[in-house]
């Protein structure tokens, strides 16, 4: 499992962008990652620039994140549940602010990547890690060729180059270790073809407890699932 206390990624970068295909797990990873950052740094912020999904967004976790001392950048309240592509201007400011570690949760697919493109200048001028999140159990992301095609296309649309891939193969409660290992095999091919490294395999905390460090080939990072339905 990745030890973020010592991992060089937190020394190299101050901004962390999670983008990728629709439903790949960007929001859940962002929500966990920003909390990890908060355990290590005083000034931490998260920006929700998802203009694609109407529900299950980072903004739904605004109150608990703020209670944890994390600065949350979302559209102002009257427009919070609006069907409008709003990016608050302070996002650019925080990406430039050297004092802050910033997580950016991006909307899915080409539309989400295009929105991200509006921030590409800030990302180029300040140390920014751009993670491409992949769940191989999602449609249009099941084969190496499909994933490579998505990576090139979304990278172009966002005008950002991908620092690393985050492997997030899962089927919610029905995830198995075999399934994750198959996902790793697919992403190894993607990584070899694109020369983009795989940063980590994501494990939900409920599964992480049952997995030994050596069961998987990529380093692992654990997330907690925050955005649940009321009956779960």
């Amino acid at each position, binding site marked *: 499992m990745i030890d973020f206390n010592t991992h060089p990624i937190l020394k190299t970068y101050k901004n962390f962008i999670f983008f990728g295909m629709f*439903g790949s797990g960007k929001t859940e990873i962002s929500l966990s990652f920003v909390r990890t950052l908060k355990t290590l740094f005083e000034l931490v912020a998260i920006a929700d620039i998802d203009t694609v999904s*109407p*529900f299950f967004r980072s903004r739904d976790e605004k109150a608990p994140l703020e209670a944890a001392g994390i600065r949350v950048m979302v559209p102002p309240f009257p427009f919070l*549940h609006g069907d409008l592509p709003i990016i608050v201007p302070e996002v650019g400011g925080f990406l430039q602010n050297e004092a802050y570690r910033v997580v950016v949760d991006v909307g899915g697919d080409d539309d989400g990547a295009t929105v991200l493109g509006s921030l590409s200048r800030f990302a180029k001028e300040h140390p920014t890690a751009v993670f491409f999140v992949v769940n191989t*159990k999602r*449609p249009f992301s*099941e084969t190496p060729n499909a994933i490579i095609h998505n990576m090139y296309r979304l990278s172009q649309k966002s005008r950002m180059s991908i620092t690393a891939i985050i492997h997030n193969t899962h089927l919610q409660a*029905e995830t198995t270790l075999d399934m994750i290992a198959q996902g790793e095999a697919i992403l190894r091919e993607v990584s070899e073809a694109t020369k983009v490294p795989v940063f980590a395999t994501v494990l939900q905390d409920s599964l992480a407890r049952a997995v030994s460090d050596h069961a998987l080939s990529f380093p692992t990072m654990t997330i907690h699932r925050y955005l649940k339905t*009321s*009956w779960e």
Partner: protein
Amino acid sequence: MAEKILLKGNEAMAEAALRAGCQVYFGYPITPQSELIEYMAKRMPEIGRTFLQAESEVAAVNMIYGAACTGTRVMTSTSSPGFSLMMEGVSYIAGANLPAVFINVVRGGPGLGDIQPAQSDYFQGTKGGGHGDYRLIVLSPATIQEAVNMMFDAFDLADRYRNPVLIIADGLLGQMMEPVELPDFITPDRIPNHEGWALRGKGSREQHTITSFDLDPVKLEEMNLKNYETYQKIQENEVRYEEYLMDDAEVAFVAYGTMGRILKTTIRLAREAGIKAGLIRPISLWPFPEKPIREAAEKVKMVMSVEMSMGQMVEDVRLAVSGKVPTPFYGRTGGIVPTPTEVFEALKREWEALV
């Protein structure tokens, strides 16, 4: 067994429709349903089907009308205000006895409302919406897997009765993700060919005419009576519902779609507190499962309807119960989804007032 994948409700209904033989899709995007039309736009050209984004819902429904005349499996999807726009065409399609499938991923209303989940289009779906004496077969899923299987059922029912079928899913079901198993694509021989009525070029056969129009009142009444024979058959044969813990229940909840799912947690809370609650979950909203509710009213002390509306299905519940036991209602609107605990508190208030 086919491998499972992780799908949003909207994507799952789209893929399932294609596997159920949907050849043609016309639609217009609207939140919280847009993933469905986007999925169709991406996927249909890949498999040689026809996708067209119309200039409005009004155009889309009339394209559906035209395509349905050929007996081809055809569908559209929309959300509340968009379905309102389609109402004239829906009445024409029903009046002309054409098979077509509609999906309404319901959002908060009335008017422009908001983009959060709701169930306030029950009246619109089951009681008309459009003009004239017509019925839609209306189905409502509670899980994404159920929605997938329902797409096959919907196209079969539409073909069998030559009647439009409406799937009502609330916005939450459209947006949430679950692992699902997708059935294989059906083979073309499973789709009725409709040679006897479809418009595909006259050739040497007798002329086919499709219309909902007749200037002779006697003939128009005959047409209505014939439709009602069909509706009667649908009521006799196509009622679908789920019963949950009803064997020893003292309180019967009635709820459909996502609300039916939330109530299973409420029922657990109620039983832990000593109130034996059960659930009747209508899967077909029309034909409404009147009989199981009527029978339950003979055994239970209370039948409580819970909806994401100000109370629409509760009217059908009250007709079924016919005053035998109290029929309280609990609902939230505006896109607010009641939590299991909140419904449990409402149940406690009603129960304590009763016993």
